């Protein structure tokens, strides 16, 4: 029993600054402005077109961004791992550094690259590139930012595959495609699936990119929480949206822990 007393202080911090506030958010979501307790807030929010659009948009953006990151990240990692070139090490160091940067940097950079007065529009003629303030802008920004998050676990997994295994497969007559499909990818599958699952979670909860792109009609769940709470001071509605958001991302995270129980700690670190 005395051993258990040990963990009380850090757990107390978690309870006071994380558990208790979340519980209050849940409670608040049932309390209407006039103080009555009921499902009125939930009803109002769930039937609103604004919420339904945000929910659909969040899910679609997260799935599409994860798919994009997976394709791009796996390709980049494959080249780095299996077709090394001079400077490949420096490139993977750069990937590690990029992981430490905030996501809004990408959104800001996109204004200069693809914005109405950006480099691409200047080069190709004004108005030829016009996707930044649409869902596509957010999607491409998320893919750009989160691709390194897939690259890193993919690189780690590819480096575990013994080169001899690939040489044997090739010497038995397998084409590069076949080696890739039947040797490399199956070996790396758990790491890739785990990375994809975390990327999905992070994309779903992404806020910086959506905020900085600032497209009027791209509202995701975290963005809706922010606008409800800070812009319109509608706390009950903000709490309802927050609870919905937490339920989805919590379920995704629970699934991740269950499926990838062993690698959970490592993957979380990779994701950061």
């Amino acid at each position, binding site marked *: 029993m005395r051993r258990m007393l040990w963990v009380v202080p850090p757990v107390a911090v978690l309870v006071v*600054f994380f558990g208790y506030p979340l519980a209050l958010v849940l409670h608040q979501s049932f309390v209407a402005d006039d103080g009555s307790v009921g499902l009125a807030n939930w009803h109002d929010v769930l039937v609103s077109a604004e919420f339904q659009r945000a929910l659909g948009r969040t899910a679609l953006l997260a799935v599409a961004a994860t798919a994009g990151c997976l394709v*791009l990240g796996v*390709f980049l990692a494959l080249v780095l791992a299996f077709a090394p070139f001079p400077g490949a090490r420096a490139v993977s160091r750069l990937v590690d550094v990029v992981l*430490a940067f905030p996501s809004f940097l990408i959104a*800001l950079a996109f204004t*200069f690259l693809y914005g109405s007065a950006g480099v691409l529009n200047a080069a190709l003629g004004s108005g030829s590139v016009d996707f930044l303030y649409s869902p596509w802008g957010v999607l491409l920004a998320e893919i750009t930012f989160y691709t390194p998050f897939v690259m890193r676990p993919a690189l780690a997994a590819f480096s575990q595959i013994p080169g001899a295994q690939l040489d044997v497969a090739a010497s038995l007559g397998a084409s590069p495609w076949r080696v890739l499909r039947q040797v490399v990818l199956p070996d790396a599958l758990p790491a890739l699936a785990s990375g994809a699952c975390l990327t999905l979670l992070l994309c779903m909860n992404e806020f910086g990119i959506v905020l900085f792109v600032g497209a009027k009609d791209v509202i995701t769940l975290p963005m809706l929480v922010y606008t409800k709470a*800070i812009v319109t001071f509608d706390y009950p509605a903000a709490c309802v949206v927050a609870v919905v958001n937490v339920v989805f*991302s919590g379920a995704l995270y629970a699934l991740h822990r269950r499926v990838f129980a062993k690698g*959970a700690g490592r993957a979380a670190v990779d994701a950061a």
Partner: protein
Amino acid sequence: MLLWTRRSRAVAIALFAVLFTVVVVAPLAMIVLASTAGSWNGVLPSELTGEHLAEAVTGDAVASAVVSAQTAVIAALTAVVLGTWLALGAHRAPRPVRRFLDAAAHLPLAVPSVVVGLGLLVAFSRPPLLLNGTRWIVLAAHLVILLPFTFSVVSAAQRRVDPQLAAVAASLGGSPWRVLWRVRVPVLLPAMSASASLGLALSMGEVGATIMLYPPDWRTLPVSVFALTDRGQVFAASASTVLLLAVTLAGLVALGAIRSRAAER
């Protein structure tokens, strides 16, 4: 390896170069370029100036940078201490308790930062503890967001530590405190330092919870950058972002230097 012909290799590497440039190099280059741009109407800035960067290191931005650095250092250090504490404590707890603690400590990872901010706003704008409007609420948010990461890094290292080490120290007559202080904590130092780097970088770039909570006298650099972009001052915003990256990298390099010196001993 996977590609034998020179041609297929060249094609793969060329494609890699193009994609890598688009995804990683171009955004970084744009920020740096924009921070030195006087005006930018063509493909490249028509004139370069050090004005924005000079403003960033003298004006409001530097005040925000100091706030950000303070927040990051305090939050990361606290998160490392608490994360290590939790990892050490959980390690000795019975299996079901350990699993529960592990899940609980990772939970903030699954909650969007905006919701962490909303929760703190709702919880600490009322008695018994009024923190809203003070810097402490920002620090609390950063701590909650960093804790799962520091815990994760340290407890992963803890699992790899040979349990015999502490047992030998105890059998040689070391008191539990002495074993903790001289054996169990020192073997975790590299992981603690790595988790501090991670925490520092995450805290420096945190925007979701901070923007919900910051009081006027505790505005972090990412929030200032957003205020600038919102007003359309994109070049000044880029200069502030460059400052943010510089401060973050300086912190990471400093921690790395401490780490390698500790490893030499």
